[in-house]
């Protein structure tokens, strides 16, 4: 896994108290127990932490964690 992926995992664990073992590329945010308000917060935190822009509807609850990781990596111009 890429450094960005690992960074996102750490952020979910430390900031959103998601259990590390639950986090897989194919896990949806619903499965990670992140509701729509938490998702908005996650996107805001990402923008501040990574100094990048993300629309507040960039991901929804049925999207996977892997999808978010790809989106972030794309914005950062990093190859997975």
């Amino acid at each position, binding site marked *: 896994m890429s450094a960005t992926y690992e960074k996102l995992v750490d952020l979910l664990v430390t*900031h*959103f*108290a998601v259990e590390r073992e639950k986090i897989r590329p194919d896990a949806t945010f619903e499965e990670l127990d992140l509701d729509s*308000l*938490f998702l*908005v*917060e996650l996107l*805001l935190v990402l*923008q*501040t932490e990574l100094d990048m822009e993300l629309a507040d509807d960039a991901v929804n609850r049925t999207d996977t964690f892997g999808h978010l990781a790809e989106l972030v990596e794309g914005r950062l111009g990093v190859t997975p």
Partner: protein
Amino acid sequence: MTPGPGIAVTGLGLVTAAGIGTDVSWRSVCEGRSRATRNPVLDGLPIDISCTVPDLQPARDVGPRSALMHDRFIQLAIVAAREAVADSGLDPKTWDGARVGVVIGCGLGGIATFEKQHRRLLEKGPQAVSALLLPMLVPNMAAGHLAMDLGATGPNFVTASACASGATALGAAAQLLRDDLCDVVLTGGTEANVSRLMVTGFAQMGVLSRRVDDPTAASRPFDAARDGFVIGEGSGVLVLEREADARARRAPVRARFAGYGASADAHHITTPEPEGRSVRRAIRSALAQAGVGPEEVRHVNAHGTSTQVNDVIEARTLRAVFGDGVAVTSTKGVLGHTLGAAGAIEAALTVLAVQHSTIPPTANLDQLDADVDLDVVSGTAREEKVDVAMSNSFGFGGQNAVLVFTAA
């Protein structure tokens, strides 16, 4: 006025500067030693002391996501409410949640969250402000979170009457039981306002003790050398039920919540009305609802903030109603002034005084103010039968709330 149907106190939960739990708080209050300490959050400010809850760990004491979504005033309330419900023997898994109400007093709400997010807005711009700012800030979330945590889907609201908020909540809660809108009400108060801005605000008013070099001597209600209060934080939650219901399920009743009286001074934004006319009216209403006369009241847990003005006016008012027949104490000497939580924490301590026949001492009362002509308990706790006890709470804006408890 005839006394209303008996309301039983069947559960207590306390989180105070003495620690987490009713027993540790009651023991500390009975020892009569102040819990005030220097507070690193306030470093560099003229007033840097407070009565802060030690060792609250949100992830351990509340839940894994607590730090993300709860301001401290919510965390304190959740911990106190869980203890109170467990103490009552009621089981949230099996109770009829629609008949369980929640009424919590809170003066300010998530003020630390507000300050942190405001700083982010100024320093980093709007994108850096948390989407959870509002649900962490607004005071009504104290009651809202207790509903979510315990599955209580009955009437649910927060009362705000500044430093009387917690006592006002108890009065409103009893009314829900009398009106048969609920069978159980979780009621109390919560406050976590020990922030740089709030402490500065109170300091600017001149109401805080300046005795920062000797924190444990700073809060000294009714003492001649008092110079203001020590700001505190905490939460107190009580479980109330109609006494008949409590008896029917064989629940231990700690005391009866027998009377509530409330009034407004309509006098000044912060200073109590000097003759205490409205306070006396609130006291008489509470006694009438309880069906007791002033001569039957044995103990008063005073508002007793340790400010010059409050303590003298309150003492004069108590003297006018009760003569010298009551043993008065102010537990703010030990726990500081917890503002919106104070009325509820002190209600719980008054219940314990009735239950245990013990009147706690007022910390730091070395020399009674010459203008306080009352039997104020000092030094060590006094053990004596307390059949009827009263707790006073007065808020900025002249909002007065008085509670009467009787032995079960």
